[in-house]
């Protein structure tokens, strides 16, 4: 039985043995002498983090002509106030019009907690359908309905015949998984179950056999380029440019895709992922149910990585020669352009922190640019990244490796020890380094470009700019402080990791 026959997807701890606690070194991880795959006793001290609701909302709010109905307490989904900026700019860039995200909350109160929220949810779905007339309503269950036992699917089944929007249930109960990437599975699960049915075929008045043949040929050269909101428009255009250079047509999916067009993902020749953390759950489903094969291996951040990504696509279509020509031209032009920056980067020590694949791929790019990697932190670890660890270990030196779902206290301790020249951290993850006076740059921001050859150049350009004048952080560090005790900086940075995988235990 397929996962997609179940109401909810499995959590990634179970499906992929994903874990979030490891402290040690890259060589320890790469050689397999120390592992954190499972045995995730985690930490005795933890700091706040995010749950799957956050990446889930970033994605769902991008979908045009839809509303997101959060079933939970009023605060769940507040993160959308920040993500709205991406919805506004992304809508303008892709659809030609700025629009605000539209999210609703059933705002469960104390009475609902006692007597259940199903009635309120049903009424809210009907009211949302009447008021906004959307093509789809994402009904998102957060922690409270998960604990009080609301039957979200039951409500959806009862209400669906009464409304015109298609209702997509999405499970985001934050306490059920510590791997927030489970969010991607949760939404893909909903899309897979509800939005992939093709519209009824309309027979054309005048048959057009040639047109049909053309369409068939176009589809045989169409690829799904998967983006769950980790790429901004600039990154999408860069990858689309490379794919079109191979003579391919591109269906960017699923961010900013209209619900009524979602089925088109089932018609492409192949699906191409840019990040194994994102799409494996859905791509396997597309292959099993619709016969659409997939490529999921390299993240096209970094020169080598981008070339490998292009090479895999070219090989799939038998366009190896064309692919090699493209790669050679692109690499030559890029390497020439990067020469200006190399003297500034040479020997500079860099530390990165991001989602697993992004952190590893970005580190590989930074090594290509001439930086020395002295530390990596990634949000979680699963089986997909094994090969990447080997690549990084092969760079030569050993360096600190920390798997942590944020946990800036470990980062502060590490940064004081290794003293990098520059730090790249995720959204809401650069302040620790900044307050220590280290030059910083955000490793993920949909308004900026990171991906492909163009992204490599743009990232280099921005790092060059940061290193040219890191005064903001330098001066800030004289007055700003971190909230940690003196004894913490003396302690082993991985002291609180309970997992047997920790080298410090």
């Amino acid at each position, binding site marked *: 039985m397929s996962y997609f026959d179940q109401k909810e997807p499995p959590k990634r701890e179970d499906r992929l043995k994903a874990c979030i606690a490891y402290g040690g070194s890259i060589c320890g991880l790469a050689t397999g002498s120390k592992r954190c795959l499972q045995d995730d006793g985690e930490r005795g001290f933890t700091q706040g983090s995010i749950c799957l609701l956050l990446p889930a909302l970033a994605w769902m709010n991008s979908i045009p002509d839809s509303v997101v109905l959060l079933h939970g307490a009023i605060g769940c989904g507040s993160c959308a106030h920040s993500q709205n900026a991406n919805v506004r700019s992304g809508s303008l860039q892709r659809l030609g019009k700025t629009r605000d995200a539209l999210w609703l909350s059933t705002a469960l109160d104390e009475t609902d907690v006692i007597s259940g929220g199903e009635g309120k949810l049903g009424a809210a779905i009907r009211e949302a359908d009447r008021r906004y007339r959307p093509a789809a309503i994402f009904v998102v269950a957060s922690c409270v309905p998960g*604990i009080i036992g609301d039957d979200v699917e039951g409500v959806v089944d009862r209400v669906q015949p009464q409304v015109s929007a298609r209702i997509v249930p999405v499970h985001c109960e934050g306490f059920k998984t510590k791997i927030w990437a489970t969010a991607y599975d949760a939404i893909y699960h909903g899309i897979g179950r509800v939005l992939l049915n093709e519209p009824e075929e309309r027979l054309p008045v005048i048959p057009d056999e040639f047109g049909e043949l053309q369409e068939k040929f176009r589809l045989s050269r169409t690829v799904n380029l998967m983006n769950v909101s980790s790429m901004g428009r600039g990154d999408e255009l860069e990858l689309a440019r490379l794919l079109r250079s191979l003579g391919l047509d591109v269906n960017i999916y699923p961010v900013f895709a209209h619900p009524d067009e979602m089925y088109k993902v089932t018609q492409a020749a192949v699906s191409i992922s840019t990040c194994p953390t994102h799409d494996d759950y859905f791509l396997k489903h597309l292959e099993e149910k619709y016969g659409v094969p997939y490529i999921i291996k390299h993240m096209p951040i970094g020169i080598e990585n981008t070339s490998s990504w292009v090479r895999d696509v070219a090989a799939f279509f038998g366009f190896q020669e064309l692919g090699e020509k493209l790669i050679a031209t692109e690499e030559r032009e890029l390497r020439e352009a990067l020469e200006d920056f190399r003297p500034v980067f040479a020997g500079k020590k860099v530390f990165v922190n991001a989602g697993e694949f992004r952190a590893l791929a970005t580190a590989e790019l930074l090594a290509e640019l001439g930086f020395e990697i002295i530390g990596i932190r990634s949000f979680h670890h699963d089986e997909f990244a094994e090969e990447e660890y080997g690549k990084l270990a092969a760079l030569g030196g050993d360096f600190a490796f920390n798997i942590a779902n944020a946990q800036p206290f470990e980062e502060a301790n590490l940064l004081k020890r290794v003293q990098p020249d520059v730090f790249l951290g995720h959204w809401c993850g650069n302040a620790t380094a900044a307050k220590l006076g280290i030059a910083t740059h955000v490793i993920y921001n949909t308004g900026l470009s990171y991906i492909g050859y163009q992204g490599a150049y743009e990232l280099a350009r921005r790092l060059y700019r940061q290193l040219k004048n890191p005064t903001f952080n330098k001066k800030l560090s004289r007055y700003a402080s971190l909230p940690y005790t003196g004894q913490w900086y003396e302690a082993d940075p991985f002291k609180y990791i309970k997992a047997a995988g920790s080298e410090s235990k």
Partner: protein
Amino acid sequence: MSSFIERPRYLCPLGGAIMTVTALPGVVPIIHAPGGCAGNIIWAQNGGSGLQVGGYCGGLNIPSSNIQEREVVFGGGERLREEIRNTFDVVDGKLFFVLTGCVTEVIGDDVRAVVNEFQAEGAQILFAETAGFKGNSYRGYDLVLQSLFQNYAGRTVQKVRGKINLLGIVPFMDVFWRGNLDGLRGLLGKLGLQVNSYFSPEDDLAEIGKAAEAELNIIVSDVYGAEAAKTAEELYGTPYLSLPLPVGPAATDIFLRRVGEALALDSKLVERVLAEENRLYYHYLEPLTECYNDLDLQRYSIVVGDANYSVAVAKFLADDLGWLPEVVVCTDQLGGDQQALLTKRLSNLESGFKPQLVFETDTSEIITHLNRLRPRNQNQKYYNAFSPAFVVGSSLDRELAQSLGAPHLSVSFPVANRAVLDRGYTGYRGGLRLIEDLISAAIAGR
């Protein structure tokens, strides 16, 4: 009542409590909740609080028990105990504040018992139960202050003449909280008062610990801080004075006079301060006069905001700037009494102007209120339009402004499109700041 709230302009009580605790000097929150609550709230700050994220131990630095399914099944008390103990080792705090979320309250963890154990060992630690289903972020502010009054304000019954506590400005939810507190502290200082405002750089835990000594609690809000003030009244007999957030001369004159009366201050002193502040206000305003007239800068306006800003800004526009804030929308979820109180605040304005105050939580419904109150042109040749117009609201009201072809200024949460550091709108100087911001937006294309 609607079965949902569209794009809530507030967070949960836990969110408000985190914003409040992280703004207290040297105080460290410890969240007893799943791991995502902190991040969700930090992202909301990032998007709504005028680009201010953090506090002493804010952002993703906040200790959190990050409970999971096993705690939901077996209880989270032990995990909380471990988290608190280790927080003392890792995080440098003068006072720790345990805050609970939905999950730990539904499963019934006895947080009081755990906190009591640490208190018995001499630890400086408090708690507040701030589950998301108990209200919104403003409730969280009150719950934290109530806990401070109950457990940290000292048991003194000796009132100190001239000491007051200032309540009603919720850190980060009022995006201009720092400037607003500074503005009011300055003015109250001119009356010779000693102000504990909890969250300013001048405040410290020693004074917060003596909050019971105050002879008056001044709440610059008709809603926020009211429950905390009632707690202080019950516990220490401290009376409270509740007034709207004073923005600009008209409201600030009333504010200072009422404070003076309540504390039986020398009325000559109060009037001297008023006269001097008004003189300065008009000294700075005066050179605008030519351009204000030449560019015809009077505007019809819609004011959209929380319980503080909706009333305060509308009064300023009507009674100081001489604009026409015909439609005022309060986006908070309020009870009948609270709604009546706010309505009364706008019913006898000094200018005689009569704004229409409506209560509407849902952003996309605001336009329907406007269309009802100011019907659109039905092809009349002569039509007294709602134009030129200005929208003062949150960053969510930009679509409304666009549909009216009106300029817009974000002042009420969420403020995604402005960077706010120490700017404030309270008092006389605050009125000048607001004029600068309004007029700058109105003439941005000049």
